[in-house]
């Protein structure tokens, strides 16, 4: 274990640790472009220069291993001067088009230029021009002039996405990143290169010119695309979701997320969102007050009793699934099921299960009980009613036909559907995962918080509130006021969540309390 001194503070690190990692342990951030904690070391940007006592020249902190009794100065005059010189060289051919660059505001070139660079360029020759706004694919836009050739994107593609689609072509000052074989990027993880790019060379086509990043309201939440539950930071403005970017969580997604998940936020602004409760009157769905709709729902559910088929979505949160199960318990119905949902599948992150909370549904026992019907066979059982929590059956016309024969159908969903239009007697508008509080249990059994990123449309309620009120019935005192309250009640009742609170889950989540972790995908 080498013991070294960095800026006068000593630290002991395992053998093989580099100076930049040791400095991070002490909370000292050495400037870096090409170094990324999740990628191999390239050592080509040279911005992480530090002074090491006894060495004749400045050393790069990212690729110098710590040794015993090493004395490192990250902020000495010599180191600072060295970095300022590197900055000057990096900016020689930079177009300085920050006003039109989407990276502005979260650009390391801007950051370090402001912190350690010069305020003007001494270079008065014509700058080298390179291709601008090149479409690498319909997701990624490339600008060769802004690129500092740190090769983070190349390394990401090689090492993480395992598809060597990017490379550096040409030589000298004509060096640029290009897609191999002149094609388009195809990797399902390609948008991560936008995040790893420390400058504005790789930008998102989806987020292109939508907003400057400093206007965004950021929320830490979890992607609802699949059962992996990648940690994300959502950016919203004017109450509109504009982007999702991955958030570091070593236990779940490290620094990455898939492209499919990144675009899941678009459901929030769908044109067919439900904004008011509805009840069917004379064959037509009519908007009514919440009181009337909830009363109608409670009456219908009670009438159906233990002949109610409950389809409980595994896209709902743990809290909501627990409440829905409690509702079923109260009615005494064994007919409960979830609906499977497909998603891309590979060895990196995507699990193939498009339900973000399948594990939660399993833990909370959403499956046909003894003698109970499931999604596949509920139509053939002589049932009295159905309740669809967060699901529709638009992809199964025969199931809709079966619903139409029932005496009572309750739909709690965030969007309009054929199912709702054709079969529902009561419609209660819920919210998407990006608009409400709650928690998901991911494929490896990690319980993670989700948080509202934008306000709900119209008079829609979070599903936990709808379910909480249905469970409470006429007992006003039992109606939950917050989602955290529901979670606390659930934690007291379900051993897998025992002792947990919303606050404890924090931004990184906790593993479920059980010896055997939840099994893989569906």
């Amino acid at each position: 274990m080498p013991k070294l001194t960095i800026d006068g503070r000593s630290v002991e690190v395992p053998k093989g640790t580099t100076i930049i990692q040791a400095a991070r342990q002490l909370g000292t951030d050495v400037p870096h472009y090409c170094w990324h904690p999740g990628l191999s070391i390239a050592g080509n940007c040279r911005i992480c220069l530090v002074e090491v006592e006894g060495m004749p020249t400045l050393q790069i902190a990212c690729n110098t291993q710590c040794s015993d009794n090493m004395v490192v100065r990250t902020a000495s005059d010599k180191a600072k001067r060295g970095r300022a010189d590197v900055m000057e060289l990096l900016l020689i051919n930079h177009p300085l088009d920050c006003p039109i660059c989407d990276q502005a505001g979260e650009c390391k070139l801007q950051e370090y230029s402001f912190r350690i660079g010069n305020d003007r360029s001494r270079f008065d020759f014509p700058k080298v021009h390179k291709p601008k706004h090149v479409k690498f694919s319909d997701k990624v836009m490339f600008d060769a002039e802004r690129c500092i050739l740190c090769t983070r994107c190349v390394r990401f593609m090689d090492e993480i996405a395992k598809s060597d689609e990017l490379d550096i072509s040409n030589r000298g000052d004509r060096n640029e990143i290009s897609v191999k074989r002149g094609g388009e990027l195809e990797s399902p993880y390609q948008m991560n290169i936008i995040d790893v790019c420390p400058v504005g060379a790789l930008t998102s086509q989806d987020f292109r010119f939508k907003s400057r990043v400093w206007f965004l309201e950021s929320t830490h939440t979890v992607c609802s695309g699949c059962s992996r539950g990648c940690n994300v930071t959502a950016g919203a403005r004017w109450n509109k979701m504009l982007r999702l970017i991955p958030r570091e969580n070593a236990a779940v997604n490290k620094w990455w997320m898939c492209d499919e998940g990144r675009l899941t936020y678009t459901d929030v602004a769908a044109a067919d969102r439900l904004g008011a409760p509805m009840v069917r009157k004379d064959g037509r769905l009519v908007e009514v007050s919440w009181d009337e709709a909830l009363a109608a729902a409670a009456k219908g559910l009670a009438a159906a009793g233990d002949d109610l088929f409950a389809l409980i979505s595994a896209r709902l949160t743990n809290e909501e699934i627990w409440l829905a199960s409690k509702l079923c318990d109260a009615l005494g119905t064994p007919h409960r099921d979830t609906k499977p949902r497909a998603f891309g599948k590979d060895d990196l992150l995507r699990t193939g299960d498009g339900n973000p909370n399948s594990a939660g549904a399993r833990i909370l026992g959403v499956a046909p009980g003894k003698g109970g019907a499931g999604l596949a066979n509920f139509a053939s059982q002589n049932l009295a009613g159905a309740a669809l929590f967060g699901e529709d059956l638009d992809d199964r016309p025969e199931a809709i036909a079966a619903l139409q024969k029932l005496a009572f159908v309750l739909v709690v969903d965030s969007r309009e559907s054929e199912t709702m239009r054709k079969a529902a007697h009561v419609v209660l508008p819920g919210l998407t995962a990006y608009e409400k509080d709650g928690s998901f249990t991911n494929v490896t059994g990690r319980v993670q918080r989700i948080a509202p990123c934008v306000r709900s449309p119209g008079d829609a309620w979070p599903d936990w509130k709808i379910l909480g009120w249905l469970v409470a019935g006429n007992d006003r005192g039992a109606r939950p006021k917050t989602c955290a309250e529901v979670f606390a009640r659930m934690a007291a009742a379900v051993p897998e969540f025992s002792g947990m609170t919303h606050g404890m889950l924090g931004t990184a989540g906790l593993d479920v309390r059980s010896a055997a972790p939840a099994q893989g995908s569906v």
Partner: protein
Amino acid sequence: MAYVKVKRRELTLSERFYLPVIAGMGTTLKHMLQMGGTSRVTMEYPEQKWALPDRYRGAPVLVKDQQGREKCVSCSLCEYVCPPRAISIVPGEIEGPVEKGPQVFDIDMLRCIFCGYCEEVCPEQAIFMSEEYELCGSSREEMVHHKDRL
């Protein structure tokens, strides 16, 4: 708290007969007789216009370059710096060497305080404080200057 009773001065005899008021009316009469004469101080606006100082800050306007292209690239710095949040911009992609331009550029002149920060912050010198100060409209909507008016 205790209060103090203020003792007022007794009115004099002339004051009690309102004689100073008559003196005041005399002054008014004097000015009335002088009307139309040379000692007038009021400017006859709007027939007469005011000579604006060089750095006068009127309504902000967007300018075009020599090729007739809007100089604004919708970097939104003015939107950010604007103290009363009068500016709202929707950026968009445009054809040509510059990739970005405003699709919508609105300044709410009911909010604008003519501080000139937008002009100062603009990296493209695309927004200027004009000499226009006669701003009126009969509705709130009319007082929002859209791109075509700027």
